[in-house]
């Protein structure tokens, strides 16, 4: 079954009057004849530059924005006409908005949401316990939402969106502003959730880590149109999404140009710090590090992820050629 289906989905925003011709309003095509299908169980990363049309698409998928033209069905429902039925079957997390009750304890928000979704008292207890346990929220269940840290709140937001066991979970920038550890925890949870419940995931993000760890299909959107639809492998092949291993060496060393599977990018401080790029599809950071260690003593290291902006820019460049 297709969880998401759009056909020629288009949204045009009309803005302020055009300064050159006052009678005409500026038109901005945010989503342009988008054809999209997502099957049950898929995990899809929806990426693109700011203003590319990601959020606009999501708003139309969930029925909070009326398309200018085209058709959209989500879990087989018409998002506008069947708003309430749809709301029972999907979960949505907007990284920048809260669905929790600001002044009430987290526990109370979960309980109200359970009532909203008509869970039985027993179901509410077991589901809440499961989510509290896996998302490690026991420590702040009694805390009013406004006093939570961002990491805590995001976990609570994700739990709130999953209480009613939605078939489709839509996450709009779920890891924005989170520290490395919080991101990691959230991703692990989402992977487990998907494995155990078969939840379909659609997420927008600016974080390449999210895409790599969570998504098996990637859609890149540019000016409201799909610029890429494929796997992470395919994306890597298209744009060469490489990681960089940065090593600090004990002594100044010549450029490490002969490490298998890695390419020397540049050296700093007479070779005390060297940067090596590698393709995670072909080798691993560990193997590159081992090869480097054979040649010089490593005192410190870090790995930089390819920036999603770079990946998107590459895709844009490739498709506009």
């Amino acid at each position, binding site marked *: 079954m297709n969880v998401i289906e759009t056909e020629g989905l288009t949204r045009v925003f009309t803005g302020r009057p055009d300064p050159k011709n006052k009678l005409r309003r500026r038109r901005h095509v945010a989503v342009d004849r988008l054809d999209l299908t997502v099957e049950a169980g898929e995990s899809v990363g929806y990426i693109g530059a700011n203003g590319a049309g990601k959020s606009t698409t999501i708003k139309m998928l969930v029925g909070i924005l009326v398309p200018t033209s085209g058709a959209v069905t989500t879990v087989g429902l018409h998002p506008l006409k069947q708003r309430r*039925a749809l*709301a029972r079957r999907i979960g*949505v997390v907007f990284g920048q908005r809260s669905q929790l*009750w600001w002044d*009430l304890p987290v526990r109370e928000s979960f309980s109200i949401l359970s*009532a*909203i979704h008509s869970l039985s*008292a027993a179901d509410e207890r077991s589901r809440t316990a499961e989510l509290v346990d896996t998302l490690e929220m026991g420590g702040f269940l009694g805390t009013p939402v406004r006093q939570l840290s961002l990491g805590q709140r995001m976990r609570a937001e994700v739990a709130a969106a999953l209480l009613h066991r939605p078939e489709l979970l839509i996450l709009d920038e779920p890891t924005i502003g989170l520290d490395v550890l919080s991101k990691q925890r959230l991703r692990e949870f989402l992977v487990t959730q998907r494995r155990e419940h078969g939840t379909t995931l659609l997420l927008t993000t600016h974080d390449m880590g999210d895409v790599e760890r969570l998504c098996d299909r990637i859609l890149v959107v540019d000016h409201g149109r799909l610029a890429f639809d494929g796997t992470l492998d395919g994306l890597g092949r298209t744009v060469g999404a490489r990681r960089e291993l940065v090593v600090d060496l004990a002594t100044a060393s010549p450029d490490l140009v002969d490490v298998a599977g890695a390419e020397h990018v540049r050296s700093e401080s007479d070779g005390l710090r060297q940067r090596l790029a590698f393709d995670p599809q072909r080798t691993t950071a560990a193997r590159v590090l081992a090869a480097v260690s054979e040649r010089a003593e490593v005192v410190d290291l870090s790995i930089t992820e390819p920036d999603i902006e770079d990946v998107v820019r590459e895709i844009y460049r490739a498709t506009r050629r």
Partner: protein
Amino acid sequence: MRPLPSPARNPYWRFLVAGFRGQSAYPLAMLAGLVANATFGLLKGGIMGAAVESAGGELAGYSAATMAAFVWLGQGMLGSVNLWGGSDLQTRIKSGDVAVDFLRPVSVQAAHVLTDIGKGLFALLPRGLPSVVIGILVSSMALPPSAGAFALGLLSLLIGIAVSHASMYAVATTGFWLVESRGISVFYMAFSGFFAGLFTPIYLFPDWLLTVALLTPFPSMMQLPIDVLSGQVTGTAAWQHVGVQLLWLAVVLGVGHLTTRAGRRRLEVQGG
């Protein structure tokens, strides 16, 4: 017999309770509100009391005691009825957070109005009751003549709170078209307090202005509940008051329902 479902499983009941409990998080704000209410109550009480006295002990059907009741019941209701024109929905439309409201399988209107009524009911405890107690201490304010009148007064008060929040909801839905609806709020505020009987009883108005006032929902928010609660009207007249209030409640709820339905199609959720 099947046991009745617990109210805790009813989302609308939960919205009401959430509003009530959420409001209890701000006791200092409540105290500040009470101080303001009491201060203005003393001023208003002095002015209105003097007006009754100079009119020879009776003014537009008010004695010193019923006028004091008008003043202090009105002050007590200020934290519970919304006459100032702002609301959560208004800010949520502007910020785009209203998206979250539409992603719940419930009526957006009922969710908002019930939450606001919940807040209003809570405010009766720290602001309503103390205002009345102050009124009793500093004046000879009239009290409900019987338990039945008191009960009907409470019902009238509850409907008044509901009318005010349902009206405010309808006003806030203009934000679906305007995004920033504060201008409408200011316009609303210019009339709401005046016609609700916040400054003087509307019965002191010239006939034509009284007619205009009665053609709006505002008297149902404050003046009519005060009339019933203070025993200014009793018996059939009191029931008539409640009937008028219910009529206005239906009207403002109906308007809010229609504007929500139409406005939803206009909504352009703001920000990312």
